[in-house]
């Protein structure tokens, strides 16, 4: 719960560094000059032990002639969001890089460089988000570039680079082991992979720019839902909560309960999906078919409650569009009870299959210190001993009315990541039963409200893969800036550590165990490593 002693230490830190701070409900906004940025970030990350979430670049030239850069941290013990802002020059924006003290900030800085043109000092730079042939001084997120300006796309594909020292193996973008397009070029020396060239971003669709131009506040709920097809409702709820926080709206309680119930149903479906895919990659196809047969019931429940099997479309700013009556409540409880007993008897059989048990134990270990430095999220963090869950630390929607356990294991291997998801399925079923019991009466949608300009809202929601954060600056009729950082974005750098010294055949299951979702991410990673086997396939 937020308390006043923790807030005073942030305010003191800001005034000591020639800046200023103010607090609004559970967010602390700090503004510092650019030369003090690295010291403040160091203190907050390493001494106060906050988690780093993301950084946002904003083009504020129409308002005050500057660019600005905001770094977002969360203090999980005390329940606060901390937003650190600096203002940069409007002609040639230049910012110091904080990757020397916060290694997790690597990719978001490169993204700000590609999309807005902000240069960083103190680190090596590379092109991350846009294709390599994109013209150099066309930065799509700047306010003068229209959202539908398309340079002529290149139709000729590139050729393989020839290297006389090592052999070259191309992998992808369309390969039987991949469900999403990614491209790898592997340099091998005998049987060891020495270097990898990766090109991702095949799924970058220009969502943040679209939200600022053609859309209005209510339409963006549907856009956010389609960022990812598997955890879409999380993005839509997080956006609605962030706007409601910025505009200080009082949403009816019944709407919060319905949102939490549908969030938990999405969590059950996502974990069962991953278990099925993991069994398929280990060669146990019977397990894949049975788990997806059990999962089909959850899809029917979702269709009954919301109207569509996936991409539910019931969230609006101010509440929800569909209600739960007595008949649906009874059906949900009955189906979940059947599902729990079927799943329990099945998973005991599946985990005891010899190939599953032996291949999962002891492989892909992520030690705790590395996990803290890279600020990983979700089941990957909880399997390495970090006790972090946004439903309990920064409570939102109706989670304060339900009591649930957060499973934490300390081994950090693949089996721990699988068992955590099995435990979470049972916890989710219990949360849904508790919330359906306590459902209050009342309206479900707030209709008469106004959204003021220039307010800021930050919100973290716990997706099945980890913590998802949305940052909204309100404008007139549409947001002025909207930034999304999905959980897989923070988990992929941890793959570099997890794959060291592992046999090549275990690479697919190690990658699948972090449950990667590239359409949430659409980022790129360049992994350079020598004298160690490397990951190749990126199945979903």
């Amino acid at each position: 719960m937020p308390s006043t002693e923790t807030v005073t230490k942030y305010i003191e830190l800001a005034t000591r560094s020639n800046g200023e701070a103010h607090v609004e409900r559970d967010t602390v906004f700090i503004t510092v000059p650019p030369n003090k940025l690295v010291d403040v970030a160091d203190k907050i990350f390493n001494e106060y032990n906050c988690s780093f979430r993301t950084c946002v670049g904003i083009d504020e030239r129409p308002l005050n002639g500057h660019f600005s850069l905001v770094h977002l941290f969360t203090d999980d013990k005390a329940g606060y969001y901390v937003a650190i802002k600096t203002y940069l020059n409007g002609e040639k924006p230049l910012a110091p890089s904080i990757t020397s003290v916060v290694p997790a900030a690597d990719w978001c800085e490169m993204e700000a460089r590609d999309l807005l043109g902000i240069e960083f000092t103190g680190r090596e730079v590379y092109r991350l988000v846009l294709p390599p042939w994109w013209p150099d001084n066309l930065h799509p997120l700047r306010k003068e570039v229209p959202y539908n300006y398309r340079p002529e796309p290149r139709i000729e594909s590139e050729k393989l680079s020839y290297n006389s020292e090592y052999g070259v193996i191309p992998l992808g973008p369309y390969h039987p082991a991949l469900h999403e397009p990614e491209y790898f070029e592997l340099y091998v020396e005998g049987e060891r992979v020495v270097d990898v060239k990766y090109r991702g971003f095949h799924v970058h669709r220009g969502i943040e720019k679209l939200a600022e131009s053609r859309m209005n506040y209510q339409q963006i709920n549907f856009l956010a839902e389609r960022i990812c097809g598997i955890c879409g409702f999380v993005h839509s709820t997080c956006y609605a909560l962030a706007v409601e926080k910025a505009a200080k709206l009082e949403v009816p309680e019944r709407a919060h309960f319905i949102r939490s119930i549908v969030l938990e149903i999405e969590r059950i479906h996502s974990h069962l999906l991953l278990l099925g895919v993991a069994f398929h990659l280990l060669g146990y196809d019977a397990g894949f078919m049975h788990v997806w047969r059990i999962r089909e019931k959850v899809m029917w429940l979702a269709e009954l409650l919301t109207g569509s099997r996936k991409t539910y479309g019931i969230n609006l700013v101010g509440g929800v569009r569909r209600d739960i009556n007595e008949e649906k409540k009874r059906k949900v409880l009955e189906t979940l009870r059947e599902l729990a007993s079927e799943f329990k008897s099945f998973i005991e059989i599946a985990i005891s299959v010899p190939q599953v048990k032996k291949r999962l134990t002891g492989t892909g270990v992520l030690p705790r210190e590395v996990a803290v430095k890279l600020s990983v999220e979700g089941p990957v963090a909880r399997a390495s001993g970090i006790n972090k869950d946004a439903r309990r630390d920064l409570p939102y929607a109706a989670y304060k009315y339900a009591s649930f356990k957060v499973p934490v294991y300390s081994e950090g291997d693949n089996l721990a990541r699988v068992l955590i998801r099995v435990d979470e399925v049972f916890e989710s079923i219990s949360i849904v039963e508790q919330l359906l019991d306590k459902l209050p009466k009342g309206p479900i949608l707030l209709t008469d409200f106004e959204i003021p300009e220039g307010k800021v809202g930050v919100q973290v929601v716990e997706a099945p893969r980890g913590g998802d954060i949305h940052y909204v600056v309100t404008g007139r009729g549409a947001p002025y800036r909207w930034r999304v950082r999905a959980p897989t974005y923070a988990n992929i750098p941890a793959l570099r550590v997890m794959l060291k010294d592992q046999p090549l055949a275990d690479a697919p299951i190690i990658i699948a165990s972090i449950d990667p979702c590239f359409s949430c991410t659409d980022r790129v990673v360049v992994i350079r490593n020598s004298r160690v086997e490397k990951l190749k396939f990126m199945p979903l």
Partner: protein
Amino acid sequence: MSLKSNILKKSLWVFHLNTGSCNACDIEILDALTPFHDAERFGVKLVVSPRQADVMLLTGPITVESLPKVINAIEAMPRPRIIIALGSCGCGGGIWHDTYSTTGGVNKLLEILKNRGVEVDAIYYVPGCPIRPEALLYAVALIKGIVSKKREMKVYKAE
């Protein structure tokens, strides 16, 4: 290609091509192979390479980054080539049909293929967001000739 109708009535081998979609349509394609909807009754099998495929399942608005690779994959298919464009993204470009990083669905792709001389024998459109597994099975049954088309253009005059 008059042999086409005889050969393809028996079984269709599909290749799944994701050109930048959000993955909802992709997991519904996998769902069509699981016990409740069982696409293998129609002889449908997911193959590993476009060179073995009869039908290409295209999901996603074709992003500028993946456009050259999609063209390579379609050129690698042997004749007769059938493309099924799935979902709102494939048929009309979807909710992001005019942003800087997408090319707006399968129509622009067909123009580019015609200019390069690559012929596509049939193309089917399946609307939905995401598509139901039953809608995909309906499209497969339509290709095989089991069911007939239900959707037609309607023009109403209101004075």
